[in-house]
């Protein structure tokens, strides 16, 4: 029996790094994971071999066919990336640039509005340990970590014993959401807001902070003004506050404007006390999928290289838009399942173009794929670097041998094949 300590969980943006893994003849068992993480380490169906048009082929043949498709495309879309490692992503970006294609990652359907907001106003944030050690006020806005990031409250925010904050009793926890969530159940206070009212409510809070509460009506979007006054008072009087937000803010009416408004609120709070704001990022390396292209080519997502350099335009080059507009003529999908997660209108185009899939597991997208290339599991069978939701780099280890190539190896081979076909 082998016991491995401090292994990293590759489910959500928490990237918990205290997982204990036990390997014996019965297989792999884990300790310290949440339910979602537990599931991640179980055996799931695998794509068994490389395929072209449903026929078994060798890796080399699959990669060659993939390279030919990509090289012959006028606008290939290279999408996914949030569930693989930085080393693979770097090849993906290089490939997109070489091909004159489009690079986009899954953040374009979750926290892309946060990026747009940051472009407008910046973002005052912190690492998770700062929240754990100092935050005496936590506001979860439009996010439900008890379900989506189950160990966030225990490891980083609500419950842990911090250096300057002794634990749960010393923290005031507020949940702002459209419905009572599981996280609301562990909060001290739940403020229910009507759907799509975030922008107005945050505006009202900024007005209260600026001493303009007299200009407010008695209720804002159905929320009594005095409730907001009391919330802003708590924020102003906290020693260190953290506003943690999720898709409830980024994907509801107002989207990036909601986030921009919330960031402005937090920036303004720093004239009174210390306050930070932090997106609750979903996939375990969606941050890396933004960060790697940013240093490689300057932008995080929705990047078109058709002119030989990077252009950023989410309204054209994000996965939903480019598919909805039928603007791409092939797609390479890496560790993602757009067929399951995108609107039907966007998915439809995937059926009309050649799709190449690189993934350990079969999923809905596999059905659309002309070329299917199985890969090994990162963090289990393959190594590499990922960034936690707060940007802290984590190196994944492998603890199992695999007959499959890693995403990085596949993309490296694919890149070289493309370079060979295109000539220098």
């Amino acid at each position, binding site marked *: 029996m082998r016991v491995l300590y401090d292994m990293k969980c590759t489910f959500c943006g928490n990237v918990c790094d205290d997982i204990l893994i036990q390997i014996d003849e019965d297989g792999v068992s884990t300790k310290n994971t949440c339910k979602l993480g537990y599931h991640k380490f179980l055996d799931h169906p695998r794509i068994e071999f490389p395929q072209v048009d449903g026929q078994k082929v060798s890796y080399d043949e699959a990669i060659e066919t993939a390279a030919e498709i990509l090289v012959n495309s006028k606008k290939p879309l290279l999408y996914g990336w949030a569930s693989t490692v930085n080393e693979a992503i770097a090849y993906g970006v290089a490939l997109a640039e070489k091909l004159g294609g489009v690079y986009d990652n899954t953040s374009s359907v979750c926290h892309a509005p946060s990026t747009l907001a940051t472009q407008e106003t910046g973002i005052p944030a912190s690492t998770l340990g700062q929240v754990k050690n100092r935050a005496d006020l936590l506001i979860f806005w439009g996010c439900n970590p008890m379900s989506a990031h189950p160990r966030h409250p225990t490891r980083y925010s609500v419950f842990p014993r911090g250096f300057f904050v002794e634990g749960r009793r010393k923290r005031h926890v507020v949940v702002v959401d459209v419905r009572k969530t599981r996280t609301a159940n562990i909060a001290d206070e739940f403020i229910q807001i009507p759907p799509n009212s975030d922008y107005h409510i945050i*505006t009202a809070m900024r007005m209260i902070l600026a001493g303009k509460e007299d200009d407010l009506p008695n209720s804002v979007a159905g929320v009594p003004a005095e409730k907001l006054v009391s919330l802003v008072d708590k924020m102003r009087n906290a020693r260190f506050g953290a506003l943690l937000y999720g898709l409830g803010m980024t994907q509801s009416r107002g989207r990036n404007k909601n986030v921009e408004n919330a960031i402005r609120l937090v920036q303004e709070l720093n004239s009174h006390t210390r306050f930070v704001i932090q997106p609750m990022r979903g996939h375990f390396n969606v941050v890396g999928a933004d960060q790697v292209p940013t240093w490689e080519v300057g932008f995080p997502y929705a990047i078109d290289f058709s002119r030989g350099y990077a252009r950023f335009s989410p309204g054209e080059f994000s996965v939903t838009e480019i598919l909805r507009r*039928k603007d791409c003529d092939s797609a390479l999908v890496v560790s993602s399942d757009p067929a399951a997660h995108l609107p039907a209108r966007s998915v439809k185009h995937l059926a009309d173009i050649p799709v190449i899939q690189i993934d350990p597991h079969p999923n809905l997208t596999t059905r659309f794929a002309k070329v299917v290339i199985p890969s090994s599991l990162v963090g289990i069978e393959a190594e590499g670097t990922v960034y936690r939701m707060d940007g802290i780099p984590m190196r994944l280890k492998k603890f199992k041998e695999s007959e499959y190539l890693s995403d990085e190896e596949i993309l490296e081979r694919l890149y070289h094949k493309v370079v060979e076909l295109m000539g220098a």
Partner: protein
Amino acid sequence: MAVKLSLKTELDVPVEVDGIVPSVVGGKTLEEIQSLEVYHGNRVVKLGEIFNVSLEEGEENLLICEGDFSKVKWLGKGMDGGKILVRGNVGPHCGAFMKGGEITVEGHADDYLGAEMVEGVITVTGNAGSYTGAAYHGSMNGMKGGKILLEGNAGSYLGEKMKEGYIEVRGNAGDFVGYKMSGGKIVILGDSGITGAAMKGGEITVKGKCELPPSLKEEDGKYVGDILEGGKGVVITG
């Protein structure tokens, strides 16, 4: 002579035609026009490979686009004079950075119509997408002058960061009309969504219904703000 373009076949991936403006095509021979270069996806192609190009009787410096141009991007980008007439729909970025002249679209326009335009007139008989007359991501200012007239509806972010100029929408507009605008005028004859947020200056008139953020303050039947920005913008409703 006017220059007329029509698509040879339906486009798979979009074609980007920045550079193909009246002052460039005007006065050129058919062969010269056909051999101008445009981007078709990642390929540089001759205009004549994608479009039927013909010279017709008509005004000098008139470019006629016949048919569905909804996959044609950047039409009239930065144009500095002359006329473009689109008999059909047109793709994103039409008239962006325009410095003069006229664009008429007899159909629908897409996103970024007249974005960051400086001068000239754009008329669309149908609808436009989002970011009409707006700023590109990271830019300080949107539309800096000229006119945009929409017979139909506008999407979201109409006139975002607009500095000067005039936008008229006969139909409805989406959310965040005049977001962060600092000058110029927007008139909407129908309804609009959230209007005047983060406004610093300029004037928005909405004849129909609209939704105002709490940071616009009522003064003499008008709304002034955004007071969080120390703004002096005015929204007139009804």
